[in-house]
């Protein structure tokens, strides 16, 4: 029996684990088969305080994990497949085991949202990607498209210009959601061009990506573009489906009540699985800390 079971191993989950273990709580962190969260798919992180020169996303996560292990958290790299929050103690199931905890912190984050158009899914890894830092070098001197209009689309595009000949950002709206700083960075890059009010409706190509079909969202005109790759950065889907009985909003983000409580007493939430407002490494870590302190306080109130 654990005092706290934390589900997820991004900045929120790992920070929560650091706080709970340091408070002397018996803490289990179920990290997921792919641990580390979205920062594992990034390069340089320049806005995490304490690293004046910046730090590589995967290095930051490896450090956080080391710090968590140092304080004595038990970490298992498995996915959670089901939960029972209907009675105490709470039950969290993986493929092979089930674990019992008095309190649970959900910090499962969010995953890439794909375009969901014909021709896409079978070409993931064959020209379709969601990770420019991982795959950009394969597009040396090639033409690529980035789909999206937020910060991550701008960042993907900038990373790609180190290798690609030309990068086209395709966005279905007339203006970007990205921060001014990121927009300015992308706009100042001579290799990046923009195609606004345009939606990708199909990915073309047999064995690999050879082009896309696009539609003008204003006049409905359709045309085909030749390209070697499509990087998808249109947002994220919260990983909340496995938690039965936990209240979510219409997009699947877990609803937090006051002080990071969910609708079930003793179950707390932190990070991108609930936060669609800030979505920063440092806010996720902060929310993880808050949820851990709340869980601690709640456990104390139960005795």
């Amino acid at each position: 029996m654990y005092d706290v079971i934390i589900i997820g191993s991004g900045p929120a989950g790992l920070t929560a684990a650091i706080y709970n273990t340091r408070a002397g709580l018996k803490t289990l962190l179920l990290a997921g088969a792919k641990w580390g969260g979205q920062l594992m798919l990034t390069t340089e992180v320049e806005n995490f305080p304490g690293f004046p020169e910046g730090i590589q996303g995967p290095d930051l996560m490896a450090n956080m994990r080391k710090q968590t292990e140092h304080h004595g958290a038990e970490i298992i790299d498995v996915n959670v497949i089901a939960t029972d929050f209907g009675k105490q103690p709470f039950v969290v199931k993986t493929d092979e085991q089930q674990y019992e905890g008095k309190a649970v912190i959900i910090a499962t984050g969010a995953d890439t949202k794909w375009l969901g158009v014909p021709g896409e899914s079978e070409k993931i890894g064959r020209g379709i990607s969601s990770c420019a830092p991982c795959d950009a070098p394969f597009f040396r001197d090639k033409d690529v498209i980035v789909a999206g209009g937020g910060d991550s689309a701008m960042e993907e595009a900038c990373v790609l210009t180190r290798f690609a000949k030309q990068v086209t950002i395709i966005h279905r709206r007339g203006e970007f959601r990205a921060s001014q700083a990121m927009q300015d960075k992308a706009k100042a890059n001579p290799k990046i061009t923009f195609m606004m009010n345009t939606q990708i409706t199909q990915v073309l190509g047999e064995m690999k990506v050879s082009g896309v079909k696009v539609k003008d969202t204003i006049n409905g005109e359709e045309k085909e573009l030749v390209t070697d790759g499509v990087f998808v950065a249109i947002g994220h889907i919260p990983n909340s489906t496995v938690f039965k009985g936990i209240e979510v909003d219409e997009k699947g983000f877990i609803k937090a009540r006051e002080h990071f409580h969910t609708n079930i007493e003793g179950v707390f939430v932190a990070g991108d699985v609930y936060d669609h407002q800030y979505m920063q490494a440092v806010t996720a870590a902060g929310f993880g800390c808050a949820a851990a302190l709340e869980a601690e306080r709640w456990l104390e109130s139960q005795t």
Partner: protein
Amino acid sequence: MADVTFTDSTFKQQVLESKLPVLVDFWAVWCGPCRMVSPIIEELAKEYAGKLVVGKLNVDENPQAAGQYGIMSIPTVMAFKDGKPVKSTVGAQGKESYKKMINEILG
């Protein structure tokens, strides 16, 4: 047996002409998620010693092999049997999912 390092010059002999099935981890130093896969590959090499050859191929240093199999996204883990690629997964996966893939090819 530890994991093996494949290169363009050894690929034919070590992978394609191997008597045992082979699992190849296509990776590069600049790839963050590849770092999640590397330790798993090393464990799998030990666990399946004698049944399966498990190794890594650096795509920067060995563009020929990576190009031949159309690798455009890493980490990609590809299984070879009798000189042919029979299965592959793109993106970092958990150990269980690699084991599942291995058990399918070992039959």
